């Protein structure tokens, strides 16, 4: 009985479970990345256009979140939420450990961490938009909303894409840490498989290959999108 059978899709094969884990990894990483994008856009706006207070807050946020381990942030959401929720649950007659579900705690933590990196990416991208373009748009009578939709957003997106791609690759790898909350993504599935079959190397190698595949595919998609978004600036 080879490990190929063990990881396959037949009877007793771990293939379907590992694929399910891969879908969960993608889901938590995408949700976290999306939350991070919202935070990052807000943070960049605060750093660029905000007053003294919001600039200070945004600076503190990016400094702190980029200076502490991601694992602490995941623990903060997972165990920290239980510090609030467990007594609250007690009021309603529940007993024992209550915490945010792993998916929610994980994607919030990933969002908060990646938001700090995305703030810096978006800030840099906005500053790369030349002021002449914005001036020209205002001169041709665009309203603020049209200006944002037609000029600022597409240009910022083009400049931000390489940076956002890097953050996405970070987020994908960071999502493995969410396995500590018990969320059954790739790594947790591999741990369960390793535990119940006594073949840890096989399962962790399979997990590594799955991450490799997801990261390669997303890298290819990002390069293609980047190629498409820069078609206006390439020499023909």
């Amino acid at each position: 009985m080879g490990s190929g059978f063990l990881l396959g899709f037949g009877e007793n094969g771990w293939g379907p479970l590992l694929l399910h884990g891969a879908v969960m990894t993608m889901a938590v990483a995408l949700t976290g990345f999306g939350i991070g994008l919202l935070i990052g856009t807000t943070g960049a706006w605060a750093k660029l256009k905000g007053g003294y207070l919001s600039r200070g807050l945004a600076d503190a946020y990016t400094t702190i979140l980029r200076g502490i381990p991601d694992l602490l942030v995941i623990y903060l959401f997972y165990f920290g939420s239980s510090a609030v929720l467990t007594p609250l649950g007690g009021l309603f007659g529940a007993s024992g450990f209550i915490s945010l579900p792993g998916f929610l705690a994980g994607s919030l933590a990933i969002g908060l961490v990646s938001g700090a990196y995305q703030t810096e990416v978006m800030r840099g991208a906005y500053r790369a938009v030349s002021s002449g373009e914005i001036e020209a748009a205002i001169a041709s009578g665009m309203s603020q909303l049209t200006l944002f939709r037609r000029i600022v957003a597409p240009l910022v997106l083009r400049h931000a894409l390489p940076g956002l791609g890097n953050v996405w690759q970070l987020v994908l790898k960071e999502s493995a840490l969410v396995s500590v909350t018990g969320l059954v993504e790739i790594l947790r599935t591999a741990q369960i498989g390793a535990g119940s079959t006594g073949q840890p190397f096989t399962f962790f190698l399979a997990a590594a290959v799955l991450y490799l595949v997801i990261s390669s595919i997303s890298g290819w998609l990002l390069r293609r999108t980047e190629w498409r978004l820069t078609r206006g600036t390439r020499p023909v």
Partner: protein
Amino acid sequence: MMDFSFLYETLLTLLTGVPLTLKLAVSSVALGTVLAVALALARLSGIFMLAWPTRFYVFVFRSTPLLVQIFLIYHGLGQFHAIRTSFLWPILREPYWCALIALSLNTAAYSSEVIRGALLSVPPGQIEAARACGMRTTVLYRRIVFPLALRQALPAYGNEFILMVKATSLASIITLMEVTGLAAKLISQSFRAIEILVVAGAIYLLINFLVTRLLQWADYGLTGHLRLPPVSADALHRGA
């Protein structure tokens, strides 16, 4: 509202984990650097059989999570009877060595790219001049290429070091009692997660702040030639 005596006690407990955190970060960056220089030189050698495996190594280690790499080494290697009976087993069954190996292999992949970029940034004119003076390859590297590359690589290397300080927290998952490991243990004893995690976060922030300062100081020392020479009082008096 704030329980300062609890925070203080937590701080004292967590500080005992700092030596292990620093030991892991410093030794893995040191080991990783040696490996990274070898990888970068192999990649730039132009020899297919050296460059291609290096590219593959960097690709694999940069595209998979560090935690998976740690698990592969700590839990995974024990699957093989040959390894369990080999002379390496006393090392490979220790969580400390497994964490150190995984962190070193991981940082080597990232920093080999930093070093490769730095080596490529050395102006060809400088190398040509050194050759023209008759330097051998070893002297050329020791006197010209490595010092220039070091200056170029330092800022990116500093970032890598900070990333490694943060990465050492994963060692807690394979039972090492560094700062995060101690914090997790305290949480399971007292259930006061938020206070404990804030203290732990502050410790990491302080370490990284000091590292940043140290790097700025090193960078200042290495870029002396880019600054204007100090004006001496003597020169001012002469009214130059």
